[in-house]
């Protein structure tokens, strides 16, 4: 296996994990609907118990996404996490509150009552997709940082990756183009959440409310997503030549799509599938739209990552020092590490298989008001 193959392979896996993460963020999106005023307390509790059986998968995917990025492209880990400090801290805190909110909220001893914990879940539902989407958006707009490997021998300032903005990540919220992707992701996860609930819960009121929410959210989703896409295809991109020199290329991301027809097809089919899941659920009586939209989401996100990293593109560009930009060549682990992890990654289908098996076993019957009312084992 060549080094180049391994680097490409790991970028593929990172893209896949990214796609799965966005799909699984239906948990965050569904929790947003806890704020829906047309739902009773029991119905909110049904939503809570529905997402409560899946949140750990989303969480684990986030953790594994981070771990896999660390292992395969450690320079991204050290540059982005150590530099865009506040964005990551905010994302983490929102997930930390989410992690305990299920377990804590319906317990008498929780000090602050039910409501704050529901609010935490909703804050996570808003912030996680918004900030993660914006962070991915900076793959195309660039971030202010410098990488200087010689620094480690400099006793006064030994840190290799330094961030060139005092805002340490929050400046991304001023990047119009990146924020568009964050907003698109926020509405997408809200839609995915509604689709998931329609399929997972047996309750007319909830289903009706979710169909209504989908119809409300689909317009801003399309607005932000198409807005982001249009700018993406028109903007100059961060290209890298065979020697590793980074330069600006007009229409780079459009070129990437045209020069990689497979990615173009993946992207288009993905978008169509997302819509094919949404429309019959929002405007018709479909119950299983989550699967079409879910698969479409995974495909679309993967295509976005491919545009960012393949075909001689710098996936984490620097706006302050162009040559500091990260590419899948200059930021990856050594060939031996990538190779060892290649073998480990062959176990992934096995992991997916047992997750699918357990998921099917647990979701054979939809959640009913009766179940939540009677069972002892619930959140």
């Amino acid at each position: 296996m060549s080094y180049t193959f391994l680097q490409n392979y790991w970028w593929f896996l990172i893209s896949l994990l990214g796609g799965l993460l966005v799909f699984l963020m239906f948990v965050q999106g569904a929790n947003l609907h806890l704020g829906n005023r047309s739902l009773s307390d029991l119905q909110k509790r049904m939503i809570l118990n529905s997402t409560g059986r899946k949140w750990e998968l989303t969480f684990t995917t986030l953790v594994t996404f981070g771990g896999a990025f660390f292992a395969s492209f450690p320079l991204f880990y050290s540059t982005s996490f150590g530099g865009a400090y506040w964005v990551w801290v905010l994302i983490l805190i929102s997930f930390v509150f989410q992690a305990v909110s299920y377990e804590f909220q319906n317990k008498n001893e929780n000090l602050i009552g039910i409501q704050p914990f529901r609010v935490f879940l909703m804050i996570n539902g808003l912030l996680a997709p918004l900030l993660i989407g914006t962070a991915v958006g900076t793959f195309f707009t660039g971030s202010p940082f410098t990488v200087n490997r010689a620094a480690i021998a400099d006793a006064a300032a030994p840190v290799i990756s330094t961030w060139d903005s005092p805002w340490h990540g929050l400046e991304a919220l001023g990047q119009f183009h990146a924020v568009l992707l964050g907003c698109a992701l926020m509405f997408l996860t809200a839609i995915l959440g509604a689709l998931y609930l329609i399929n997972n819960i047996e309750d007319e009121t909830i289903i009706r409310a979710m169909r209504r929410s989908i119809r409300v959210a689909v317009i801003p989703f399309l607005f932000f997503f198409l807005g982001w896409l249009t700018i993406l295809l028109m903007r100059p991109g961060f290209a890298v030549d065979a020697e590793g020199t980074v330069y600006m290329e007009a229409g780079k991301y459009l070129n990437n799509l045209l020069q990689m027809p497979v990615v173009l097809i993946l992207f288009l089919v993905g978008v169509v599938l997302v819509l094919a899941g949404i429309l019959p659920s929002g405007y018709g009586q479909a119950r299983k739209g989550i699967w079409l939209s879910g698969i479409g989401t995974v495909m679309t996100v993967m295509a976005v990552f491919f545009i960012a990293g393949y075909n001689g593109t710098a996936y984490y560009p620097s706006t302050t020092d162009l040559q500091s930009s990260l590419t899948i060549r200059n930021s990856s682990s050594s060939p031996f590490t990538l190779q060892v992890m290649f073998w480990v990654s062959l176990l992934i289908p096995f992991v997916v298989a047992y997750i699918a098996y357990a998921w099917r076993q647990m979701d054979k019957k939809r959640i009913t008001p009766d179940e939540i009312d009677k069972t002892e084992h619930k959140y």
Partner: protein
Amino acid sequence: MDVIFWSRIQFAMTAAYHWLFVPLTLGLAFVMAVMETLYVVKKDEFWKKTAQFWMKIFAVNFAVGIATGIILEFEFGTNWSNYSWFVGDMFGAPLAIEGILAFFMEATFFAVMFFGWEKVSQRFHLVSTWLTGIGATISAYWILVANGWMQNPVGTVFNPDTVRSEMATAQAFWEVVTNPVAVSKFFHSVTSGWVTGGVFVVGVSCWFLLQKRQQKFARKSILIGSIVGLVGSVAVMLSGDSSGVHAAEFQPMKLAAAEGLEDGGRRAAFTIVPGVKIPGMLSILATHDIDGFVPGINDILKGYTDNEGNVVPSVSEKMQRGRTALDALATYRAKKDTDPEAAAAARAVLEKNVQYMGYGHLEKPEDVIPPVGVVFWAFRLMIGLGMLMMLELLVIGFLAWKDRLGDKKWLFVLAIACIPLVYICGQAGWIVAEVGRQPWTIQGLLPVNVAISSLSAGAVKTTFFLFLAIFTLFLIIEIRIMLGAIKKGPQTPNE
């Protein structure tokens, strides 16, 4: 206080909180699994209700364990930027494998275990309960492989082009996975979790005995809890012994600090408390040979000859060679594109001195001494409490086995008091392991002062207090919920 201080204290605080929640889940997982197995084998509803009670406690701990764990993982990047580049090639892989092989197993089967009672078959449920515990244990293995590598960095070579420690060969990963330090750390940490689980189950059950409630539930739980705890205790002791030998071999300064040993020698004495010593005992423990040489702090500073006859240079010599290596690295990088000859010469100098490059970042030789008092007393606390826990489990387990627990109130009170003590014991253990290896994030390769991110002290100070407040709030709520669940008691018939 600088950014190094705040980064360290933030990481230490997160790790300490994480280790409040994790050990109980490691131990309880097996207690529950044994109970559920009894339910399936004996078809006795009593065991189901008993297992379900402990699962409730497990679930609360699991959630907070996850919450603190994610912060730990990302802090490697957010607060230790240089570290994650410098050793990401070695350290990242176990972390990623942990995610792929263990976390998904835990997450998937935890949900089945907790919600699946009426949804999946009895057999699949039992398998899920076991897999939750096995997943947690596998997860512990991989993170301790990562931690073990920081204590004894095997299988790596420095690459001056990328400026990081890289996997030396494809086979080197095997060295990392079977690193003796990692293996004994794994057994030591996981089985200490069994002790925690055992002591916890016994203590809570004794509370029921004191209250004269749920006698059958309490007695049966005590029996299983004490067996799991005792097996754990024996394994902790054995793996603790090999940890000591490894410290002597790979981290002699940690051992010297733990013993407060200024000047070492052959037939070194083991200090129980200052002034009370067992002659020759330290040599036996550290080298399994009464005539083995154990270096003290001063020996390490001045240089010494180890038991294999290797001459270990003084710290100042190591520092000098480390600085030579750093200068050569700078020269190599400056010249490699313009002057290949000078670059090759610099590279040769670098390779000759690279094993001490980490020392080049130190300011003075005394920097290699960790805070001796902290490590010394934490070590004594760990061993003393560990032995007390073993004794407690032995006595109560024996009495429960002989059905002679009777109404020994003093014993029940003691068992309850042991619950906080077992936590202190576990924390003390990690203090020995982690404070004892200061100033190194990677033993000998990377000291804390160059492992950091380029952040202001104020930023990290802010997040430190933020995380501290959040975790403390979680801990308080968690304890209150556990106490509430205990007061409510299991749903077994009250007999």
